[in-house]
């Protein structure tokens, strides 16, 4: 395993998919933390059921082998066991369903008013981002396209098929509203470490609210088959401290207003 790690992880990507990865990426938002926790909760029951079923199965095969026991017992009714095998599975599915629904509905809930709105618009085959909270007219808006960096232009340390030319810069520890839509065919805006995957449907605005808890660079990919370059439509979110975000946006806005 260590050899494998040395082979594949010479450069460790921070919040991107890794070779031979089995689990989730590290959580960057409370939603993702909730998803990981739910996964572990459910896995507890899953293992429990797996072990129990295997035990029953092996035991039945063992004890009722045709050489061992040619005529099995002919029990057709047992009230106790029927009550037990009705109540226990329903309890288990309740224990799984309740936290699952709690998480599902809390993910959609907008708890507080978001501080910024970012629009992610899917195109064949790139994402366009609009920051228009600071506009004073319909024309001016902080809009840019985010294209994948082709393999031959990659610099050392950049991830193949994941790096983009313009990252989405967001403030960390701030409630964000992301409006996801598409201009042509359906796409899907997904960032695994944020626990977000939202379909981009033309003519419809889907809202997701996230709170990135730590600064970092988070990688994701288009997750709805959208044409030939579907695999080359990555998403990169860069979470920076709130202060840096403010100065970055005002720096980008000043030249724009200067021109106009």
């Amino acid at each position, binding site marked *: 395993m260590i050899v494998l790690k040395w082979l594949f992880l010479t450069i460790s990507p921070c919040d991107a998919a890794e070779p031979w990865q089995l689990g989730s990426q590290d959580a960057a938002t409370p939603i993702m933390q909730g998803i990981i926790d739910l996964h572990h909760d459910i896995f507890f029951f899953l293992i429990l059921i797996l072990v129990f079923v295997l035990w029953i199965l092996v035991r039945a095969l063992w004890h009722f082998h045709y050489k061992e026991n040619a005529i099995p017992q002919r029990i057709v009714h047992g009230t106790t066991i029927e009550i037990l095998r009705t109540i226990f599975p329903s309890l288990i599915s309740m224990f799984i369903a309740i936290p699952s629904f709690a998480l599902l509905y809390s993910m959609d809930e907008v708890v507080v008013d978001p501080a910024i709105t970012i*629009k992610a618009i899917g195109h064949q085959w790139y994402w366009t981002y609009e920051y228009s909270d600071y506009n004073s007219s*319909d024309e001016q808006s902080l809009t840019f396209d985010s294209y994948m960096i082709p393999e031959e232009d990659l610099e050392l340390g950049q991830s193949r098929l994941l790096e983009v030319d313009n990252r989405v810069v967001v403030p960390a520890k701030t409630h964000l509203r992301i409006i996801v839509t598409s201009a042509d065919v359906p796409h899907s805006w997904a960032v695994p470490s944020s626990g977000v995957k939202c379909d981009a449907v033309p003519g419809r605005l889907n809202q997701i609210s996230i709170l990135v808890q730590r600064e970092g660079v988070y990688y994701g990919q288009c997750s709805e088959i959208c044409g030939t370059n579907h695999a080359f439509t990555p998403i990169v979110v860069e979470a920076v401290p709130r202060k840096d975000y403010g100065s970055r946006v005002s720096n980008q806005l000043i030249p724009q207003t200067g021109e106009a």
Partner: protein
Amino acid sequence: MHQYHLEKAVEDKSKSPEVTSEEAPAATEEARANEENTSEEVAEETPDEIKLETAPADFRFPTTNQTRHCFTRYIEYHRCVAAKGDEAPECDKFSKFYRSLCPGEWVDRWNEQRENGTFPGPL
């Protein structure tokens, strides 16, 4: 005494024309938070440091689908302008809201449709 002053200040703010009763608590809180932020940063940053502010969550549109939220805010703005005149300051917030929510392409198309008189919404 201190408490009283604070409440007074909040009251005054909520009376200002931009803030309606609907979002008064959130808006004043944010305004206060922003004051704190900017007062620290003004010294080192440019004076026109941006305020982190956007369209608030609207209880009429509690679901993931926000298409109508954008459309409604656009209509609200144009109704407001129609009722109160082009430069009415109370319409500014609606314009900020719809610009935050609607993709620029949609707004351009709707503006065109309004000019041609083919806008489908109730203006």
